[in-house]
């Protein structure tokens, strides 16, 4: 026998009940070349989610990564990380927030004069009070977990791209950040290699509570590969969120725009 009463409302996803880890509000951004990439665009990314941010070439994915890293502020709008607008804070506060977000950049960008293991240990060395031995041991564990196969005392320059990415991934999660951003994860890797890295990240996410993974890609079809539970497409100078209509509605409600 069915329940009697008002019809059950569709429950919004759990993520919407939380404060977003990452939020871009009413972003207006024009690139150095003068091209308008975002026009009052908003999006919120929630803890525990695996989000793919996708868009065509030069659609603004790199700009989003740049906003989140605090490299380039938008000309208008807020970039909120963990509730703090990072466009309005000083360098030392920004650096403290940056410890809670790890980046795997498209070109890995390892520190060229540090050995592989030193690259991974660097954030531990700089930001924690761990002893040298302990931070090196943790760096080694991270390298093994991320699938790095090779000499940990090698300089990173001559390493193949996949090895560099595994090192960059190990470095990105060394401080156990709440958010990990994996920029253009499809570039230069085979599908097996991408799978391996994505599995590492998914394992990392499941090992902690409320960890947000953000992937960027030129192909929205990568959602299955990265096991994304949400896809945010950059289209028409805005964020379009076909995967989670409720989120789009809420974001749209704030600024009158979809996504």
């Amino acid at each position, binding site marked *: 026998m069915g329940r009697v009463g008002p019809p059950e409302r569709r429950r919004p996803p759990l993520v919407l009940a939380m404060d977003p880890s990452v939020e871009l509000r009413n972003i207006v951004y024009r690139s150095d070349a003068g091209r308008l990439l975002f026009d009052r665009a908003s999006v919120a990314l929630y803890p525990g989610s695996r989000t793919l941010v996708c868009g065509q070439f030069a659609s603004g994915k790199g700009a989003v990564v740049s906003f989140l890293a605090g490299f380039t502020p938008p000309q208008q709008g807020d970039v909120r990380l963990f509730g703090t607008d990072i466009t309005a804070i000083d360098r030392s506060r920004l*650096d403290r*927030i940056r410890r809670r977000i790890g980046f795997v950049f498209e070109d890995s960008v390892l520190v060229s004069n540090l050995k592989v293991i030193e690259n991974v240990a*660097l954030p531990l060395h*700089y930001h924690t009070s761990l002893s040298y031995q302990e931070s090196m041991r943790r760096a080694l564990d991270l390298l093994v977990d991320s699938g790095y196969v090779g000499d940990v005392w090698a300089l990173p320059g001559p390493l193949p791209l996949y090895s560099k990415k595994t090192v960059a991934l190990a470095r990105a999660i060394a401080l156990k950040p709440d958010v990990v951003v994996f920029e253009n994860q499809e570039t230069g890797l085979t599908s097996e290699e991408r799978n391996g890295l994505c599995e590492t990240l998914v394992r990392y996410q499941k090992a902690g509570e409320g960890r947000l993974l953000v992937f960027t890609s030129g192909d929205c079809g990568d959602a299955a590969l990265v096991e994304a539970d949400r896809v945010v497409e950059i289209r028409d100078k805005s964020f379009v969120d076909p995967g989670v209509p409720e989120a789009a509605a809420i974001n749209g409600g704030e600024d009158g725009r979809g996504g």
Partner: protein
Amino acid sequence: MEVARYLGHTMVVRTRALYDTWNILVYSLWTAAFRFWLGTRATLRVLVKQVYFTAFEALPLISWIALILGLIVVTQTLSILPRIGGGGLVGTVLVWTVVRELGPLFAAVIVTARSGTAIAAELGTMKMSRQLTALDAMGIDPMHYLVMPRVVGTAVSVLVLTFYFVAITILGGYLLAGYGESITFSVYMGSFLEEMGFLEVGVSLLKGLAFGLIIGSVCCYHGLMCSGSITRIPQETTRAVIGSLWAVFVADAAITFVFYI
């Protein structure tokens, strides 16, 4: 009109470069004094490495040059002074030439050629390959982690190498050139030490410290100026050497003028 515009533009560019270099120098000193606790162990490793590469690894080269210079100076001094009845002035000549001028200058020139180029090229490469932005993204200020240890490390190195260069020049000079001559070691050293005062030692080390700070700041500035094309790296490295040498000689003249005029 074109000439005036060109001169004006050049002056603006040079003034701006000087201002930016000065900022690097002041920031490095300030951060070394008041922010060194930040990432101490990681930053200290960079500083120690810089001193190792700049000072310790330069010791063989510095030793050879100091020995050869000592041979030249002592040979010339002992060949001329006794003829004019000034045999006892050998120490004076050594202090005037080696301690006051050649020691700090040679140490600075060798460090510029050996390590200044490396600093500019390395920072330039790191900037071009976005390694500085990667450090930024990790919450590590590249000015604190990369630039400050290089500036301070270079200053410490030139200071130490100045002292070492002077010592090897004076001692080696006697062993190579003075040993077979009429002057005994005790007379040689006595003459030298008699002329040495607090001012000579202090100014010589002050010059070493100042030259090191200048070389570190100028080379870091040019390394950080690299952008756009990879061909900027050798261009900026060359500018770093020329800029360092120019600034070192100007500073030398200024310090000499202030203390000895």
